């Protein structure tokens, strides 16, 4: 490089900061500053004490919060039960089909989220194929419905965030040294024992990342509840959206957003303590 040694050393020291500057500035201005603006809005109830928004948020919409976290938790557990075996089969058993199966897992990403959820509405509709099928095998009574039920909402949430569970688990399974599994099988003899003592512990970072990437968006989601559920399944996302864009009670809406984020942050921190890993990226 041109210039004296000292100048180029300084250039070298500055280089990483110059490289990160545009992107990090963007994140500061349009991610961090908005959160500050949100905090300010949440305490700016005119003529009321600053905590008014929060009192109303928790007092009026406590059930919505609880319901959202309950649905998100069930959807996360279901995603794990559905996703882990699939990730395992792709990583260990698919052979040459591996890339094809991975492609199929991310295929839903290429059709719009909303259009997919509308497709579920069609599938689950009264007189639709799913209702008919379940009535034939007497799992659903005559006149029973799937649409506008808790089952439909949780099913939709599970569906929409399932790939976010599968992919991190697949990545952590893929990294496992196959010789470890073989060695374990030589020593423990049963495949199940090898899975329980070797494969599963090594895949926990994937389970950790996957469950966060499923739980967090699911708890804030409102599309599934709105399209597949009735007002009885309304989640906190609907309330926030409605208060912000329709009612325009900004302090309340901002307080709701903040409470949602605070609960999730505390939950994530506790979960990180338990499963302890920083391998989210």
């Amino acid at each position: 490089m041109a210039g004296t040694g000292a100048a180029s050393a300084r250039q070298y020291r500055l280089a990483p900061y110059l490289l990160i500057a545009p992107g990090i500035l963007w994140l500061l201005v349009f991610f961090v500053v908005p959160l500050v603006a949100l905090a300010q809005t949440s305490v700016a109830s005119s003529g009321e004490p600053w905590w008014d928004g929060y009192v109303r948020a928790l007092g009026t919409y406590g059930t919505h919060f609880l319901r959202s976290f309950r649905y998100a938790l069930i959807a996360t557990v279901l995603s794990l039960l559905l996703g882990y075996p699939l990730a395992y089969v792709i990583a260990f058993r698919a052979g040459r089909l591996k890339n094809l199966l991975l492609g199929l897992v991310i295929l839903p990403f290429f059709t719009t989220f909303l259009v997919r959820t509308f497709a579920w509405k069609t599938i689950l509709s009264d007189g639709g194929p799913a209702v008919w099928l379940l009535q034939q095998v007497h799992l659903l009574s005559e006149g029973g419905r799937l649409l506008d039920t808790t089952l439909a909402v949780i099913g939709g949430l599970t569906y929409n965030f399932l790939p976010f569970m599968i992919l991190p688990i697949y990545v952590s399974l893929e990294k496992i040294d196959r010789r470890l599994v073989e060695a374990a099988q030589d020593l423990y003899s049963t495949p199940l024992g090898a899975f329980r003592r070797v494969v599963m512990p090594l895949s926990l970072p994937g389970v950790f990342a996957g469950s966060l990437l499923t739980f967090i968006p699911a708890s804030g989601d409102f599309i599934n509840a709105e399209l597949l559920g009735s007002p009885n399944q309304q989640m906190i996302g609907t309330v926030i959206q409605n208060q912000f864009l329709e009612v325009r009670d900004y302090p309340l809406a901002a307080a709701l957003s903040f409470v949602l984020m605070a609960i999730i942050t505390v939950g994530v921190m506790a979960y990180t303590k338990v499963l302890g890993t920083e391998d989210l990226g």
Partner: protein
Amino acid sequence: MRGGRLGVRILDGYAMLVLGYLFLPILVIILYSFNKPAGKFNFVWKSFSLDAWADPFRYPALVDAMVLSLRVAALSTLVAIIFGALIALALCRYNFRGSGPVSLLLVLPLTTPEVVLGSSLLALFLDFNARSGFGTIVIAHIMFSVSYVALTVRARLRGFDWTLEEAAMDLGAAPFRVFRTVTLPLIAPGIAAAAMLAFALSLDDFVITLFTAGSKLTYPLYVYGARRAAFPPQINVLATAILMTSLLVLGATVVWQQRTLRQRTGGLLHP
């Protein structure tokens, strides 16, 4: 695996069922693009027809929404790719003070619910009396794409041998030439993958866009509004077209990457 054969069969079958679950709505979307609905809403199957495919641009508002979505996706991807790749390069290439907080700042937008991201941006825009529209949508999309791009490119760059750059410089290559002939080819596949991801995320985004779009309509926002007024099969036609296009692009990229990989390893083995 003796004795576990039946268990393994059941496992494979279970995995196929899960794939079927992932696939089902997509089949429905494609199928209903060939429907001739009885009324305004394409939610109940009536009869097979090619009408919607013969006239995909029948609804100008839908076309406008699609064009807006593509413009937003193109611009936000372009900017996010530059910002994100530079961050990834800095994180992999240099040890610098503050790299920990930078990594954290990249992950945080991904672990924040979209409704919080959207509403906080709206709070900011309201504070500054900013007019919502094309600009605010693009700003929001760049924000969430930068993280995805930086993390994707960083994952691809991990473990890369940076002494190659020094070797090229020692051999007398100018900095720009080093970048063009050594650095860029190595990071190009990661950037291509990140660009596709950012483009797809932007095209698909509904929640954050709802908060930042004002009165503008992107394709997902049009679809959302369509549940009240009319839901024509053209929505499914466009969704199917997006799916097919992305599959083509994805296939082409995979072929291209395998070819460049083969060329490069071939070059290393037979210099």
